[in-house]
Each structure stands twice: as C-alpha cells, then as structure tokens.
C-alpha cells in the first residue's frame, strides 16, 4: 500500500471517488480480511476461514477468493462476479489514520486520540473527474463521504469484535488447521496449508451453557457461517477447473 494522505476540505475539495472501481483492489488478492458483522454475507458465496497475519502471527478471519497466492477467481476482465463485496474492499480508498501531532498532544493530556480519515492516492477508485465528490463546493461533507466514514467505523468496531471472537475460539480450543488437497481437471495437484477452521468434533461436544453463552455473544451464528461456508471451496475448485479447461 502506498503512503496515505489525511483528507481535508482545503486540499481535497474537488476529490472524486469512483465507487464502481473498489473491486479492483481485490486484484491479485486471494484472501480478503473480513469482520464478524459481515460473516453471514461473506458465507453466502466465499469460504470463510482463518489465516495468520504475516506480520504478527495473529489469527485473522478472511474470505477466500482464490486458491493460491495472487489468484482472485471472482475478478474477470475487471468485472467482479461476487454477490457481496467485503467491507475491506467497499471502504476503498479510505482508511483510518492517527495524526502524529494530535497523538503526541493526547499523550500529554490523556485524552482519546481523534481518528483522521485518510485516503490512498494510488487507489484505482480515483479516476479523475468521474465518480462522487466527498465535499460540496462550500466544504461540507457529502452524503457519500459520510457513508464512507460510517463504513470505516463499522470496520473498526468489527476488528474489536473479531478479536473477542477469535479469543473465544482459542479458549474453547475450537480452531484446527485445515489441510486441503486438491486435484484439478488437468491432474495437477495442490496442497493448501496455513488456514484454520472450526473443529466440528469439538464444537459438537460443547455444553449447553457454553452454547448459550456463544449465542448471547452472537458468536454461534458466526461459527455456523464458517462451518457451512467451507463447502464453497468446491465452487472455487470448479471455477479454477473452468479456467484450466478454457486454456
């Protein structure tokens, strides 16, 4: 990711964002991070699995869009064929940043660090004169920008919820490594490692009390979403086979 720029109405009064292009950010991405609140939507079409963050080794829920590195089986000729666009794509090109000056100030005062909205100037959503304005001529935020900021809030909250969810899965020892062996139509083979799913045998043995607790935390449906979504791996294999046959 290129360096982000903090948004302000003076410098970015005329900035335009083309939301139809957000899916271009999924190019060469086979795993897209997702948050708990969107699990049900993600599980409709993509395998919902857990991987480990390369930097920290921490567990991270992701939607699988492809079976190997840099492969997105839902993006053809710049057209995205998925039913649901994960928040992590929808949010493009906006990010939440922390202003260094404000951060230093808040360290002294003890107040919460205010978030700053930033954008990625290299994003394919910035196509020049096409798309949505983020400010009106008199510097007021447009409805489009306000929605975008809400979405960023949803992701921030979602990341906190993810952490609780993952911690619960780890405490209950419900995660297990997935090892997936695939043979494609051209007889080439592949083994996928480094992904984790719900251990269904252990899940089936949970006590009633634990299940009730999971339901109250809204984790129960997330767990079912993960279990059921795994079947979509067959759909991914089929897509890949179609590509192989077309060659």
């Amino acid at each position, binding site marked *: 990711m290129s360096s982000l720029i903090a948004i302000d109405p003076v410098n970015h009064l005329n900035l335009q964002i083309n939301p139809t292009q957000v899916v271009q950010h999924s190019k060469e991405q086979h795993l897209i991070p997702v948050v708990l609140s969107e699990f049900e939507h993600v599980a409709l079409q993509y395998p919902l699995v857990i991987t*480990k*963050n*390369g*930097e*920290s*080794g*921490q*567990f991270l829920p992701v939607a699988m869009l492809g079976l190997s590195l840099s492969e997105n089986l839902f993006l053809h000729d710049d057209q995205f064929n998925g039913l649901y666009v994960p928040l992590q794509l929808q949010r493009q090109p906006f990010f939440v940043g922390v202003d260094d000056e404000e951060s230093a100030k808040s360290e002294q005062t003890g107040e919460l660090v205010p978030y700053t909205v930033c954008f990625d100037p290299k994003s394919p959503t910035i196509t020049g004169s096409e798309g949505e304005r983020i400010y009106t001529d008199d510097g007021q935020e447009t409805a489009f920008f306000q929605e975008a900021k809400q979405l960023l809030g949803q992701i921030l909250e979602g990341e906190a919820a993810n952490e609780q969810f993952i911690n619960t899965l*780890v405490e209950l020892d419900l*995660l*297990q*490594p997935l090892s997936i062996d695939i043979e494609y139509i051209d007889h080439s083979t592949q083994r996928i490692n*480094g992904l*984790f799913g719900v251990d269904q045998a252990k899940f089936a043995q949970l006590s009633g009390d634990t299940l009730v607790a999971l339901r109250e935390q809204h984790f129960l449906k997330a767990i079912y979403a993960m279990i059921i979504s795994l079947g979509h791996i067959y759909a991914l294999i089929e897509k890949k086979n179609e590509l192989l046959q077309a060659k």
Partner: protein
Amino acid sequence: MTHVTKKVVIVGGGTAGWITAGRIAAKHKQQVEVVLVESPNVAPIRVGEGTWPTMRNTLIQLGIRETDFIRACDASFKQGAKFAKWTTNEANDFYYHPLMLPQGFGQGDLTTYWHQLQQQANCGSFSTSVCFQEALCEQNLAPKTIRCAEFSHIANYAYHLDSAKFSTFLQQHCINQLGITQIIDDVVAVNSNENGDIASVSTRQNGLIDGDLFVDCTGFASLLLGGHYQVPFNDCSDVLFIDTALAVQVPYAEPDADIASHTISTGQPAGWIWDIGLQTRRGVGYVYASQYTTEQQAQDCLAQYVGPAVDKLEVRKIPIRSGHRSKFWQNNCVAVGLSAGFLEPLEASALVLVELAAEMISEQLPATRTVMDIVAKRFNETFLYRWQKIIDFLKLHYILSKRQDNDFWRDNRDPRTIPDSLLELMELWRYRAPADLDFTSNNEVFPAASYQYVLYGMGFKQTLAHTQTMPTDWSFEQQQFTQNQKMIAQAVANLPSNRALLDKIKQYGFSHI
C-alpha cells in the same frame, strides 16, 4: 507385603530438581505426591545455558507454553553449534554441527558423493552441502516465523536460556500448576530402613520427610548417592582434560545487536570458549585444562575474546570434575543432574541428560518397591551406556584437531587418551561413513549424522579406494545437493532474524496451532 510408590521426594532444586519433579508430577499427580526440598543456603551452579531440541518436548510434557517460557527465561533459538579454530586454528577454520539431518539422510551415499566432489572441484563444506541450517546460522536467522505454531519449526531448533531464570520459572510452574510441595530447608541427615533404603531425610526446620523414592538433585555435592550411599565416582579426566571454567555475562553493545542463532565454540590453547546469545546478554566462558595453562593465561584468553568490555564484568571461576557415578540408582535413590556427573559443557550434554533421566524415571516410575530394583538395574544400564557414548562423542571433537600450539591438543590426540570404543569406530570410518547401524541401541544420544558433521567438518578423509559399494549413478545424491541449495535460498528469503522473531514473540506470542 507390596509397598506401593506413593511419595517421591526430590532433594535439591535447580533445573535438575524441578524438571524431574515436574515430569513425575505431570504424569502421576493423581497417584503420587511429589515433594521438593530445597536448601535456602546452596546456590545452584547455573551455567547450563544451552539445550537440545528435546527441551521442546520436555516443556510440552510439563504443560508449559512456549511464549511464556521464551518471555520469562531470556531465551533465544539455537540451531546448532559453530566450531571455530578447532582444526587448524587459522582464521577461516570453522565447521557446523547443525540440528538437522543431512538432506536425504539414510538414503543414497551422500558422504561418498561429497568426498568425490571434494577431490574433483572445490565444493562447499560437508554441512553446507547437505544441510540448509548453516546458512541460517551464518546470517543469524530464526528457525521459524511468528506464523508457526508454538514448538513447531521450519528448521529444527533448541534454546539458549538464562539458567537462573529458567530455574525460577520451572519452580513457579511446578508449584502453581503441577501441585508440587516445596519445602525450603536444609537436609541434615539421611535415615535408613533395615533393607538399606532411605526411609526419610531429616531437615533443620521441618523434621523428618519420608518418601518411597528419593531423587538426588543436590548438584556436585551428591548428598544421597555419593554421600550417603558412597557410590564411587568414575573419573574421566584421563579422556576429557577440562577441569575449570571462567564464566562471564557480556551485555550487547547495542540493544538491537544481532543474536546468534547457534552456540559459538572457539578453540583456545588449553580448551575452548563458549559464546551463547540470549535476548539481553551473551553468556561467555573459557573452559580449560589447568594442567596446560595458568589461570592468568586463561583470563587473558577470555579477555581477548570478550574485548575491552571484560574489565567491567565479574568473572566467575567454576571447578569441573569430569566424570560420573559408577551407577545412578541405588536402592530407592536415583541421582539426576550434576549429582550423577558432569563431563564438560561441549555439545550441551548436561541438560539433555537431566531431561532423559527425568523422562525415564517418570515413564518407568516403579509401581511398587518390588519392581524398583528391576527399574533401577535397567536405568543404570541405560545411563552408563549414554554417558559412555557422550564421552566418546565429546572426545571425537578433540582427536581430529591439527592444532600444535599447546600440548593440550597433542595429548588429546594421543591414542592412550582415547577410549577403545572410539578407536574402533574411527577404524571403521576410514572406509565408510558413520551409519545408523553403528549405533544400534534404543538409547542413542547422538545419531550417526552428528558423527558425520564432526568428522567431515574437521577434515577427516574417508579412503575412497576401498569403498566397497561405489555407485555408478549419482543422480539421487545430485538431487539431494540441488534440493539443499533450493532450501537454503527459500529459507534465507523467508525467515526473519533471530532478534526480530524474539521481539515479535514478546509483542504477540505464538498461537498453539
């Protein structure tokens, strides 16, 4: 009457005491009470700072999380040992004993192939040609990434650790998690039964502590086995000459200095210097034979190795008596750790012997007094064999040296100082490489591959003219060598530095899967 083993008393703390207590409690805590009596007045020796990969299993068996261990014990990763200046004493004189088997080990004839390449052209050293781990060590890289599960590896590894911190960490875990009773008191007398068994030990403050099995972890004092039972000490100083250590703790020059991911062992006129990198400091020490050098000369060697920083550091002198008890289990008393013996720090054999002893005691804990004698006999046979093999393997490091700078090295090569068992093997290996069949016991400590790394690392030449099974097709061996080069490139590209991974463990920790 059948006397059931219900209570085990460990006399002495330190790593030996706590590992043994922990292994027994972890396996038997429902049936057996474990009590550890530790003197408030005896300071442990605390020089064992290098482990074997076996330590990972020991920690798992004790129910310890790797992240907790690494954070609490100043621990870092160890991927083998680098032996510098052991052969010729020249600047470029070094070889590695990595912790991974040669690529394709046991299939094909990699050593003969390597010898042939050596004759034809200048190929790399044996260890770089057959194992990718040396390349990682040379660049101070970690054996895994933060994405790996705890205790799992990309390259096999052991640990370097702060012995004092490790001992405290084990103690806390054993008391809080494994329900071991700790009594801090001095043992002042040993009380016998009619059959010669130990009935109890008398303590200064806590009276009599009775038990069914007593484990002697009293260090060099060997209070129970050596003191009470007078089990003789087999002196090995005629084979392994080292009798003194000068140890020092060296801070890093910079807080982000590289941390070596291997033990560095550098040959000196009358012994060698160990150099062990922890997270916050290095442990360095000169072990030498006082017969061949003066303490002042040894101090000078150590000062030269450490550099000017040495002036501000406290140098500790530790006497070493190389040898072991003639047996380790007598009646209802078994010795673990320094009370059983000590050779020298080379190849970090001290802690691994503690682990092996604790494992065998725990796994084979005699259910009754009647079977204890059988277990004791088997334990003694097993460990006498292991000590003998370790002595042979340690001696191997000295006999191939070409150093002429001191009689220490010349005398080490004198066949009269070499055990017959090792002389025989050396004769066999003139014509073929060390093979697994040379070591047929279930209780082998060092695999044949370790002998290969040392032999060929030190320039030992196999006589190819008499090789009986010279293959005509080297394609398998070529494949393995190529595969090894690929693995070097891949590992070097993907693994973080030792320091970077340790920082991440402190920040994030490993997950258990």
